């Protein structure tokens, strides 16, 4: 029995083309990552870090221990009074610096 031809464009072709396009774009993201990692010039940023002796990123500027997590002492999130709770939202997302944890002191 002769097989009826599917009208163009065939669904399979459209689906495979879509998957191939998405896969190609996925491959391009990997190429973009590799290319931009090499081409991005961070000389000015690194010079600023060297000049000022910067230690932290200015991502969370709400409290001093979130602005400079690497410089914070172990009490700063609870600075208001003994047994005070840390009340800044970023504090909930920041772990204690590894250098201040019990584990690191045992090493």
């Amino acid at each position: 029995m002769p097989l009826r031809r599917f009208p163009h464009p065939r669904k399979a072709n459209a689906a495979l083309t879509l998957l191939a396009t998405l896969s190609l774009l996925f491959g391009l993201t990997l190429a973009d990552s590799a290319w931009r990692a090499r081409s991005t010039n961070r000389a000015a940023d690194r010079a600023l870090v060297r000049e000022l002796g910067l230690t932290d990123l200015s991502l969370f500027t709400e409290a001093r221990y979130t602005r400079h997590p690497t410089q914070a002492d172990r009490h700063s999130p609870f600075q208001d009074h003994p047994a005070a709770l840390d009340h800044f939202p970023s504090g909930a997302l920041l772990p204690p610096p590894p250098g201040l944890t019990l584990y690191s002191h045992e090493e």
Partner: protein
Amino acid sequence: MPVGLVFRDCDTVSPPLLPTAADFAMRPLLERQKYLIDYTLAALFRRKTRNLGLLLVYTLLVFLFASVLLLSQGLRREAALLLQDAPEVVVQKLIAGRHDPLPAAWLDTLRRIRGVGSARGRLWGYYYDPAVKANYTLMAAPERGLAADEIIVGAALARIRQIGVGDYLSLRATDGRPLPMKIIGILDSASELLGADLLLLSETGFRQLFQLPPAVYTDAVLTVRNPREASTVANKIALALPASRPILRAEILRTYDAVFHWREGMTFVALGSLLLAFLILAWDKAAGLSAEEKREIGILKAIGWETGDILRMKLWEGTLLSLTAFLAGYLLAWWQVFYGGARLFAPVLKGWAVLYPDFRLTPAVDLQQVLVLLAVTVLPYIVATLIPGWRAAISDPDAAMRG
């Protein structure tokens, strides 16, 4: 697939829509797979609303997970690259567990420690600006040659205060006096991730503002002759100055690595409930074949499809849906994080902060993590599609058609 459709096509004079087993044997492999895909898509489109809804939710789920993954990877790499030039050792003075100004005399003690290359005092601190309710990081920048009343500000600070070069910014000194400072420069906006809230001033200006005595610094930064001996030098510092707290560059880098791992983990925990809800939905959809779907498989077997063909058809069904959702979700996440400024996550990163850097991350991909994401999101769905299809396919066609 409606039963009537198959019988109608077989019974009418027009050629059948479905390929028979004989056609399969004759067709080359690719053409055979294309027919299977055609059939799978036709079956999926018959339950259009349900499957499109599933695709949408699936894409959204991958988008959220991939966004968190890419953002934390990007930030982690940015921190590692930028902070590799951070001071080798920072020395603080602690009193009662709190950071205290470091006496200038300590610098000489530090310089005398074997292995220390150079030691210089840093002056930095925080300033709360009630006008915009924002915290600034103030830092003395001796190498900039600033006059006592001159400052350089970060791009985000300039943006929020709507000030530019030549304008004056009035700061309130510790004794209550207003100190008008002339802005003579704005830090490059490409460096916002480092200096969004920075306000650079001269050492004199800094001491005037905070009424700081001349013989103290905020902390000290050291260079070490042999970087591999940094931890030994830190131990010597702790012995020579018991009230000190040395912080190594390695610790700074470790902190940032941990910060973003933690943040990623916290977000994943929050998204976990979403993933579970989706898994229940997908499992219910894929694993629980309806009576109609079982009847469809029975009919396919009755007209000559082999169990292998049905499994291949089910494999295509799972692959087409889950791979499309994965790739679309991942690509959307990529665009959002690296080209859209990760605005979706800005409220989370911002917290209560008023100043927030406008930054563009350099794309960073950890292929291993992407493959894990692929495995976690795509494989379970394919398995959940295959197993019930296989169960229905190995049963007797007559029993399957009767439901």
